């Protein structure tokens, strides 16, 4: 997902995909006052086309869309793009939430919740995605992994690693302290931009997705080890 220099200075463009037109009207208005630029579409098909158009910095996707469900739209988007996606899920519906994260959603906001909550999540993701200027040349190397946090690019065993921006941030946190245990609380604060809540499965789901992408080690162990009660550790060699 290449980003032209112009977009660095442009407003954050948000794509809202929700069949509730009254709600998207209200949310657009709210987001615009918060300094975002919001566009709303009301069907999954349109959402998919718009999300893949490359015009948006972030997509807010409702899970409960009629006909083409939000989960299916996410699957189709992820097949071709790593654009950040925030899911709007029904409060209490854990299955949608976990499936969404497994499919590569960056975060979720339960419905109903205040628009302030949504804005906070959007900002947290955009902070991670938008590179800090002085760090563009920094390179992190550990074992077969090379990361360029500035370009948000990852090489794994010499090949491009397709990770979402959230997964990249988690991997970056682990790589910075490769060989040491990083606590879930630190991962949540530094990579997701919010503190860990009770029964929060987000970190675990993202980590398991990264694990799958890295594949097993020669000794059949996973590259990212979970240390019970402490956190996660990236094996450094």
């Amino acid at each position, binding site marked *: 997902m290449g980003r032209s220099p112009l977009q660095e200075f442009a407003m954050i463009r948000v794509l809202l995909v929700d069949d*509730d*037109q*009254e*709600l998207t009207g*209200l*949310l657009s*208005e*709210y987001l615009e*006052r*918060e300094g975002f630029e919001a566009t709303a579409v009301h069907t999954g098909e349109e959402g998919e086309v718009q999300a893949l158009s490359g015009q948006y910095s972030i997509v807010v996707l409702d899970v*409960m869309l*009629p006909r083409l469900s939000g989960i299916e739209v996410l699957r189709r988007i992820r097949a071709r793009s790593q654009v950040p996606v925030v899911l709007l899920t*029904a*409060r*209490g519906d854990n299955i949608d939430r976990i499936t969404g994260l497994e499919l590569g959603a960056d975060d979720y906001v339960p*419905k*109903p*919740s*205040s*628009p*302030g909550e949504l804005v906070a999540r959007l900002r947290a993701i955009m902070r991670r995605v938008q590179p800090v200027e002085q760090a563009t040349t920094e390179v992190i190397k550990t074992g077969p992994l090379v990361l360029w946090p500035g370009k948000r690019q990852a090489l794994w065993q010499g090949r491009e690693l397709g990770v979402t921006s959230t997964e990249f941030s988690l991997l970056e946190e682990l790589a910075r302290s490769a060989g040491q245990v990083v606590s879930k609380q630190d991962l949540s604060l530094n990579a997701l931009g919010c503190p860990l809540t009770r029964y929060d499965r987000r970190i675990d789901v993202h980590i398991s997705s990264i694990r799958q992408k890295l594949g097993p080690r020669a000794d059949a162990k996973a590259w990212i080890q979970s240390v019970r009660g402490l956190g996660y550790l990236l094996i450094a060699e």
Partner: protein
Amino acid sequence: MMKPSRLFWKLFLAFWLATSLTFFVGIGIITLSRQGPGNPHLDTILESEEQLLRQFGVEAGKQLLQVWHHPDDEAIAVYDSGGQLLAGLPIVRPVFERTVISKEGLTLSLRSTRVPGNGGGGEGGPGLMPLLIGTVMSALFSSFMAFYLAWPLAYLRRAMSDVAQGRFETRVKPFMGARRDEIVDLAEDCDRMANQLKLLVDAQQHLLHDISHELRSPLTRMQAAIGLLHQNPARADMVERIDRESQRMDTLIEALLTLARVQGRPDSIARESVDIIELLHLIVEDAQFEAGIKGCRVILQGCPSFVSRVSGELLYRCFENVIRNAVRHTRADSSVLVVAEASPAGHCLTVRISDQGPGVEESRLQRIFDPFERGTSEAGSGFGLGLAIASRAVEMHGGSIKASNLPGGGLSVAITLPLSLM
């Protein structure tokens, strides 16, 4: 394999006792008939002879042996110490011999052709062996019968407890094999019940899911409006917005409660004598106002009156929902036709409500009576509960409701209600 149940033991004991008793009684009768009084057994005679000799002397012994009608192969004789025959017939080669001191003090020798107590020469009394075989056979037979009757019940019981714990996918029939009897019928009924329960519970789950979604939508919009109000307290229009959303939630909850009421048993409704035609007049009059805004008319045609014992309130809601639905979907400047016809014998009333709107896709015709099922074109026109309530209300009155597309376009809903006099 399952542990034998209490029922198994009860059946087993009952069968075993019954068969064993029959067997023993049979054996007893046969034995008694063999020992007829005219032919006392050699053992008995031998014993009596010995008693007589001891207590009454040789003469008494002699008399007994004279009156005994002995079989040809059996004989008893009494000899003295010198080998002289004193009583009975001479026995050349005695098989059994016993020394007896008689009353007179003589040492006598009691001889017989057979050893007493040693069977009846192959056909005498019954031995221990047949008794044992009979008992074992009856035990085998009883345990088979008891097992055959008791084992399906164990499966049935397990299935029932599965159902009680909410595992409705449990099935008993496959365990019954090729068996065909009332127990298998019971198993089939049990499977059917589990399936019905599953459908019911699934439908309820689905409904609950839909309800929470429907309640969530106005709530989310309310939250967004509140957010905007926080951003800019001058936005007074947001207060109106919040007001509207809260009213929408109230309407939805009202409709849900009605739906819950019509989910009850048909005999739970309070019936009263109602003229349904008069009821239709009232509803059409009300709907006329709403239709007028669109430039439409609602026309009522039909029989003069149809009085039946029904729940006036539920039927009012039912017809109101269907007629208002028709008014909502009919084209501008068109008319909604309500035709009420009683059957020739007056046993039932059919009310047809037809609009001149776009109709419904054939595949969705049956589903429009499901809760929260609504047209895709009309956004925000209702919750999709009206027709569901109407359908359930009609069913509670023992009637039927059907939707069909009219050849010239538009939807027609036919409601048939039976005449009820009680």
